[in-house]
């Protein structure tokens, strides 16, 4: 069942020691999912003129960009620029807020997510989410990870799903002997990795991460960042962060957002300034506002 072969190479610089047994890679299945899958440029998401309103207030204006498979896309920008709001459009979490309304189109692998026939529940099974604060359920570690598959109706083979997900989230070594303990007993960093395992267990295609490290200490943050590098082989990742170093360390592509302040009522509307490869954004951005932000002159 489990592929015990060691991982091929580690491409990210190691900040701390990692347990040897890391997540198994899916075996190549004739689909071309080889080591070069990360460089494939298939489009996962493309958003066109996306606006988000809360009641009459426009929180985000005219956002247009694409996200490609097996890349880590970072959304950065000053606070109040709507990064999290944009992120939550991609798995329709904004549906849970009564007043929120989304216009424009977001296509996911060719299908408009906001087509009225699309079921947000099914969308969220394919597009998982990791939240700002670790939010494990007050259940056992095992039940947390098994939650998504169970909700989807899976009854058999849960043990394997739990083990594989925890391995991918680099948590298996730490918790394998206490799977039935309460998840609330884990440390903050472990809880967040558990939440990642829980999201992975559903078998998603994309992971949305909303400032996943903002509640964690630097060591736990480094672990999560390493983890992202590993799992990007299997998933497309979008991460919101207000930590520019983090964006520079982990992401392949970066989208920079900023906020227009409306002087009449002091409200803010988020706008997308530019999207480019992370290297370019941080070394040679084309927009002056981006340069001011990444060099610390603004924000």
């Amino acid at each position, binding site marked *: 069942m489990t592929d015990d072969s060691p991982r091929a190479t580690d491409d990210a610089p190691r900040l701390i020691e990692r347990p040897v047994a890391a997540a198994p890679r*899916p075996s190549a299945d004739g689909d071309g999912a080889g080591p070069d899958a990360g460089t494939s440029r298939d489009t996962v998401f493309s958003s066109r003129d996306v606006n988000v309103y809360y009641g009459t207030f426009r929180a985000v204006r005219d956002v247009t960009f694409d996200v490609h498979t097996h890349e880590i896309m970072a959304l950065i920008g000053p606070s109040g620029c709507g990064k999290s709001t944009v992120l939550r459009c991609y798995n329709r979490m904004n549906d849970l807020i009564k007043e929120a309304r989304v216009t424009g189109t977001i296509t996911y692998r060719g299908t408009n997510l906001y*087509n009225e026939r699309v079921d947000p529940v*099914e969308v969220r099974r394919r597009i998982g989410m990791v939240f700002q604060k670790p939010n494990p359920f007050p259940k056992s570690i095992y039940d947390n990870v098994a939650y998504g598959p169970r909700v989807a109706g899976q009854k058999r083979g849960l043990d394997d*799903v739990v083990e594989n997900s925890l391995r991918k989230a680099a948590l298996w070594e730490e918790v394998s002997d206490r799977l039935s303990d309460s998840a609330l007993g884990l440390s903050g960093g472990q809880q967040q990795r558990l939440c990642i395992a829980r999201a992975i267990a559903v078998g998603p*295609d994309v992971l949305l991460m909303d400032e996943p490290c903002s509640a964690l200490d630097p060591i736990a943050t480094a672990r999560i960042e390493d983890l992202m590098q590993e799992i990007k082989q299997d998933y497309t990742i979008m991460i919101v962060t207000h930590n520019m170093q983090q964006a520079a360390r982990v992401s392949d592509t970066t989208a920079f957002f900023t906020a227009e302040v409306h002087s009449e009522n002091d409200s803010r509307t988020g706008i997308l300034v530019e999207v480019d490869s992370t290297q370019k954004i941080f070394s040679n951005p084309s927009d002056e506002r981006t340069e001011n932000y990444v060099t610390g002159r603004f924000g």
Partner: protein
Amino acid sequence: MISRLSDDRSRAAIAASIERRRVDTRGLLFKTVLQSCLVITLALLAVLLITVALDSTDQIGTRLWEFLQGTLRSRSEDDRLGIHQGMYGSLWIAIIVAVLAFPIGIGAAVYLEEYAPRNRFTSFIEVNIRNLAGVPSVVYGLLGLALLLNGQIFGLDRLTGGSSALSGGITLAILVLPIVVITSGEAFRAVPNELREAAYGVGATRWEMIRTQVLPYAAPGILTGTLLSMARAVGEAAPLILVGAISGRLGDNPGLFNIRALTDQFTALPIVITSWTVQSGRDAGFIAAAAAAIVVLLVFVLMMNSAAILLRNRFEKKRG
């Protein structure tokens, strides 16, 4: 397996799977069941109010004024049947509760929230008060009976005149005391600490700080609590039965403003309602009389309750 979805690249398959909008029958059913729980509950409330209103028309519709002025009688046909003794008794009880339970209860809450050191004795008092709030009301009746009527302790029966409005009032004051302490305590805990520090910062003593900052800020919360406990006291019957409220015929009929009435025999609205309801088995006319008395009682009790609810919602909104 785990990454099965990322491997299937067929756009058509993906589109088909996320567009497969199943009708969530179980979810709808669940929601309907939950809704019907609320609907049944509220329907029962509505039926209760309508039944009482309809039953009461025989008395309230035809002889409201006489009914309000009348007295306890043994037959429902009696022209002098009415509830004025019950209303006077309830009024006296309300006054006694306000005079006794409110100052002691609020004072206890001030001590517990603002003065008391955090030690085992304080938490013992707090646990004790919480447990008192859960003691059935009939047990308070037993306390009143032993303490105020039978003179087993301190000869208090000579002071209260035995089975009297004073005994009933004191018993109900003891009954609502824990409620007053708990609700006022919650109001004090909602006072922001900055206010206290600001008052200390300009040289206020503790009591001056409490009087000028804590009490005014907590006033709406305290008022809510006192209104609720007053409504509770006015509607209670069980302890009054045990301290000997009159349900049959009340002898003489002292006026409302005669202080001697305090130590005389008494009755109260809930007792009148109980007595008439129980007697309706042999004299069906008492159903209308009991319903009419209930209308009068509900007017008072619901007015106090809704005032309390409105007051609380208003201030909750204001202070976010």
